[in-house]
């Protein structure tokens, strides 16, 4: 919402400075975005005297001037007809920006004569509209003055209005609020009922009084829309960014911003028959004044004549019945429309207008006649003509809300004591009628306030005027020992992030959205969850896997020249569209080399076992039983079928890991191997008894463990973890651990066989092992593996 200082002063009697006004506006909740002084930023303009005028040697209308700006004499070529020796005008120096041209003044040669500046016309610098000649200031004007010193600028305030303060979408509302805050006195409104000599030939009826409680119309004949809009009105409209179009349009725009009162003017000669306000029929057409066609539904309100809908009520006028400069007879609409109806229609057909903006917030329901009188007076004054009596459908009798405020409640709610007298004073200044009764102050809201419902609203009005900065700040009462803030799930999410970062992965955060074209392969058979209104086609689906975005992140990094990338993200993936159909995932990718070339370390690429380690580390960090998870090889199809795995606890999948399928990488345009993992944190059981923090008893033996290496030949299809389990189970008492340290396939072995070398750690418990004890245990392992895995011990 913009307005100028002079406009504000039309309603507010005040001596306050611009700074004070701006500060107060922000303090009372009308936040100042900007105060623009139109001349403040216009440098390079000075008053200057034309000392000499000569004819241009090569032109019959140009002159060559000697101009004195108080510091130097400059040569300027000028084509203005009114230039004369001795006149004082405005000189634009080289470098000065001319708003009208949108460029800066340069040194130039005009038909061979050098020109070092320009003598300005009014419109060129925005101080007026005259372009007939250059500005001529009074003879006693001082030379060398800046623009701001010559022209009294009318500063423009730009304030943001919250949706509850609709009345401040008019300058008068702003003025009233400032007056209530003690910054001057609100001037009385001076709108008189215009004389009327006849009844309107156009009658009005309203079919749906809920959608349109009041509709007024007035016929004005014999107007001249070719008349000039008065300068004061034009200046104000221009200052707030509205274009002056014709007096009739300018007047309705002006009142919209002056009083927050929307109006509409029809060319009465174009209307056929009477006005009827009714709901549109399904499929009925309406062409807006922007020449856009809409197919309406039966919840849209139309202002109609015999030929159909001529105005989408309260939102926008139609194209065929509007005013032009030739308009002679007009029909002026001033009406009240239902905010919900306006908002629905506006939203449905996506039409924004100043009128809709006001109606859907709140328009003073008792301002229809007043608005009509105001506009009619201005029309008669500017365009002449004769006004009819006002035609009214419905009744202008809105009864505002009466509610109460208790000073005691204000104290316990806000934490500050305000006396009843002060409360009454504030409310009355804001236009409330008040009555004290016991511990309550009853207040009836003014009709321009649509946001007042109950005590909380009155409390807000009082603290707004007292100033939030005058309320003390009191720290929250707190326990000496705070309890744990995070839940077990939240805490483990934090731990997992730190674990992965310490493992060398960079945490990233990517959109919850993803590209449905790429997501297709990641949905695991589920329906896509698509947005109705995605911001781009690349963000049209709620992601079914975090990996999609990580792969895109990888691609971006490769494109920037960084191909060794380890990224992880902890966040949601979505499996359904209902609230809660999502799960927390810790996902990561590793791609490229583990490090740059190094003198001590062989170069290697990240592989499946890096991401398997990541997945297991995440499970361990989340307190999951990572060593009892079962591994299977049925990972989703976006993984490499032979180089991927699934970790399960019981029936629950807790992680996938593996290489990404090459055909997926191809779709992403990634040309290097990528390994990835996804851990589903929600599927990891939380510690069962959170009360019992005691750890399992630590068993220590005083005898040294013994490591023995054994190699076995098995079928290639035999899984290493089955071999390890069989070996472990050979003797559950003395075998502490079994570890695969080598895998061999190839020469000296049949094609379908492989060799697995194990390090087996035996833990003596009662006494040191003798040779024979160890031999016996190793024999047990050999027998167990033969039985379970058909394994043959290789000779050492």
């Amino acid at each position, binding site marked *: 919402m913009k307005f100028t200082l002079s406009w504000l002063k039309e309603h507010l009697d005040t001596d306050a400075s611009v700074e004070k006004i701006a500060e107060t506006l*922000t*303090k009372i*909740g009308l*936040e100042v975005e900007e105060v623009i002084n139109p001349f403040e930023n216009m440098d390079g303009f000075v008053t200057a005297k034309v000392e000499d005028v000569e004819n241009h040697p090569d032109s019959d209308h140009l002159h060559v001037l000697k101009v004195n700006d108080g510091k130097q004499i400059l040569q300027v070529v000028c084509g203005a007809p009114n230039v004369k020796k001795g006149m004082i005008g405005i000189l634009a120096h080289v470098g000065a920006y001319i708003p009208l041209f949108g460029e800066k003044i340069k040194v130039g040669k005009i038909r061979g004569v050098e020109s070092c500046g320009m003598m300005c016309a009014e419109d060129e610098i925005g101080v007026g509209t005259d372009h007939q000649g250059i500005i001529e200031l009074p003879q006693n004007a001082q030379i060398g003055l800046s623009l701001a010193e010559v022209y009294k600028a009318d500063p423009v305030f730009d304030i943001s209005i*919250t*949706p509850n303060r609709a009345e401040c979408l008019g300058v008068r509302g702003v003025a009233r609020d400032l007056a209530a805050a003690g910054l001057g006195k609100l001037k009385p409104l001076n709108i008189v009922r215009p004389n009327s000599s006849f009844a309107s030939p156009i009658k009005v009826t309203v079919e749906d009084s809920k959608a349109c409680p009041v509709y007024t119309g007035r016929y004005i004949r014999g107007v001249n829309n070719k008349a000039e809009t008065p300068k004061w009105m034009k200046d104000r409209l221009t200052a707030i960014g509205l274009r002056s179009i014709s007096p009739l349009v300018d007047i309705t725009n002006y009142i919209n911003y002056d009083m927050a009162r929307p109006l509409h003017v029809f060319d009465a000669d174009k209307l056929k028959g009477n006005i009827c306000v009714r709901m549109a029929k399904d499929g009925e057409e309406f062409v807006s004044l922007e020449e856009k066609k809409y197919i309406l539904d039966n919840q849209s309100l139309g202002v109609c004549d015999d030929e159909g809908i001529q105005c989408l009520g309260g939102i926008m006028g139609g194209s065929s019945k509007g005013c032009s400069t030739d308009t002679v007879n007009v029909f002026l609409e001033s009406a009240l429309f239902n905010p*919900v109806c306006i908002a629905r229609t506006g*939203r449905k057909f996506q039409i924004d207008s100043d009128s809709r903006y006001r109606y859907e917030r709140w328009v003073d329901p008792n301002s229809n006649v007043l608005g009509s009188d105001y506009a009619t007076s201005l029309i008669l004054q500017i365009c002449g003509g004769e006004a009819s009596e006002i035609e009214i459908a419905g009744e202008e009798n809105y009864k505002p809300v009466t509610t109460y405020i208790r000073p005691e409640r204000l104290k*316990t*709610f*806000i*934490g*500050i004591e305000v006396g009843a007298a002060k409360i009454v004073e504030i409310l009355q200044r804001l236009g409330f009628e008040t009555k004290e009764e016991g511990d309550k102050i009853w207040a009836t809201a003014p009709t321009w306030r649509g946001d007042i419902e109950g005590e*909380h*609203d009155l*409390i*807000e009005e009082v603290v*707004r005027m007292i100033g939030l*900065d005058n309320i003390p700040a*009191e*720290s*929250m009462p707190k326990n000496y020992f*705070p309890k744990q*803030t995070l839940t077990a799930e939240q805490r483990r999410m934090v731990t997992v*992030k*730190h674990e992965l*970062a*310490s493992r*060398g*992965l*960079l*945490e*990233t*955060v*990517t*959109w*919850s*959205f993803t590209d449905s074209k790429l997501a297709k392969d990641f949905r695991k058979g589920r329906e896509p*969850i*698509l*947005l*109705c*209104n995605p*911001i781009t086609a690349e963000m049209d689906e709620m992601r079914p896997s975090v990996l999609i975005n990580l792969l*895109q992140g*990888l691609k*971006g*990094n490769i494109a*920037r020249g960084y191909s060794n*990338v380890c990224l*992880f993200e*902890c966040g*949601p993936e*979505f499996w359904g*569209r209902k*609230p809660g*159909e*999502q799960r927390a995932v810790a996902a990561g990718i590793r791609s490229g080399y583990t490090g740059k070339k*190094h*003198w001590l370390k062989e170069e290697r690429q990240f592989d499946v076992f890096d991401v398997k380690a990541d997945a297991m580390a995440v499970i361990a960090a989340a307190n999951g039983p990572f060593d009892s998870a079962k591994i299977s090889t049925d990972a989703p199809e976006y993984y490499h079928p032979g180089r991927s795995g699934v970790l399960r606890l019981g029936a629950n999948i807790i992680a996938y890991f593996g290489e990404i399928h090459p055909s997926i990488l191809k779709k992403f345009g990634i040309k290097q191997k990528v390994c990835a993992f996804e851990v589903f944190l929600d599927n990891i059981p939380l510690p069962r008894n959170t009360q019992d923090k005691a750890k399992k008893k630590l068993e220590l033996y005083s005898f040294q463990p013994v490591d023995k290496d054994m190699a076995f030949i098995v079928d290639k299809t035999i899984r290493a973890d089955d071999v390890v389990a069989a070996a472990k189970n050979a003797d559950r008492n003395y075998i502490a651990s079994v570890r695969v340290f080598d895998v061999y396939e190839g020469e000296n072995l049949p094609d379908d066989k492989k060799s697995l070398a194990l390090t087996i750690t035996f833990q003596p418990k009662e006494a040191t092992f003798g040779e024979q004890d160890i031999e016996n245990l190793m024999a047990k392992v050999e027998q167990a593996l033969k039985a379970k895995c058909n394994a043959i011990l290789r000779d050492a």
Partner: protein
Amino acid sequence: MENIEDLKTKTLEDIAKAADVKTLDDIKVAVLGKKGAITEQMKGLALLSVDEKKVVGQKLNLVKGEIEQALDNRKEELAKRELDEKLKKETIDVTLPIRDENLGRVHPVSKIYEEVVAIFGEMGFDVADGPDIEDQFHNFNALNTPANHPARQMQDTFYIPNPESDNFDDSYVVRTQTSAVQIRTMEKKQPPIRIIAPGRTYRSDYDATHTPMFHQVEGLVVDKVTTFANLKGCLYDFVKAFFELDELPVRYRPSYFPFTEPSAEMDIGCKKSKTELKIGAGNDWLEILGCGMVHPNVLKACGIDPNEYQGFAFGMGLDRLAMLKYGIPDLRTFFESDVRWLKHYGFMPLDESSMTGGLSNNGGLTR
């Protein structure tokens, strides 16, 4: 018999000249071995008289001791020299680089989450979570924002169709504010309530200062006594702790949110120049959060009696807090997965935040 003194002199000279352990061992055998010069002489003692035996024996023992000592000393000397030479040969250039260690980083948003949790945790708040996809009841209606409310236009909402209903009001939304978690919390729990709800939020807006996804933290307090003055105190304590400043000017401006009344926006002081923004006392204000007393309609929507209970709510952007505190210039870069950015603006894995241990390390070891 050889003159013992001569033998001693000669042997000590030989020991001193010996260049390695082997020569020493040879000397030892030649002098002290089974057939060594001294051993032979010891054997010869038997032939001497008792008195002579005593004198010569003593002498021999003395010389033997001296030679043994000299051998040990020389041996140690040689061993040390040998080790020195060996170590010298083992010298490497320690200025060569270490093996790559690939230390990862924690994203600034995660870091700010932990800082915010640490501060509000100290004030007795719990952390609540809620779903990213919401129904319109939780995201709007229960927050006193019915359909067609102008405030809905203040937020550009992403919608997800509801296959079970043609009515647009039944479609799901991707939550525009973490305020939805307020409702879910109050539905589950009776007051007193003190929660913060950090999380992802979504609006259809994408330019220099807006991204379609960003992070908010919502706060909610409901009990019988909490006032607007507590709201001010709580948030003042928060911003001071968060920015780790002893003094920080703040101001409150009346504002409007459908779910609070009175509503306010809080600004913190700052110093702005063309190149820098410094939080603290200065010539300018910076908007940091929105807040207010919980609207009675919101309490009612959750089955809480507004005549008995009251409280406040607030919301602020986690990403924005990260930008302000750690001088990160562009919001969009938070979500680009650029490894250069993540390494630079990310935090060390062990740089954890607490009120007792401190919120931030200011950088830390860079690898």
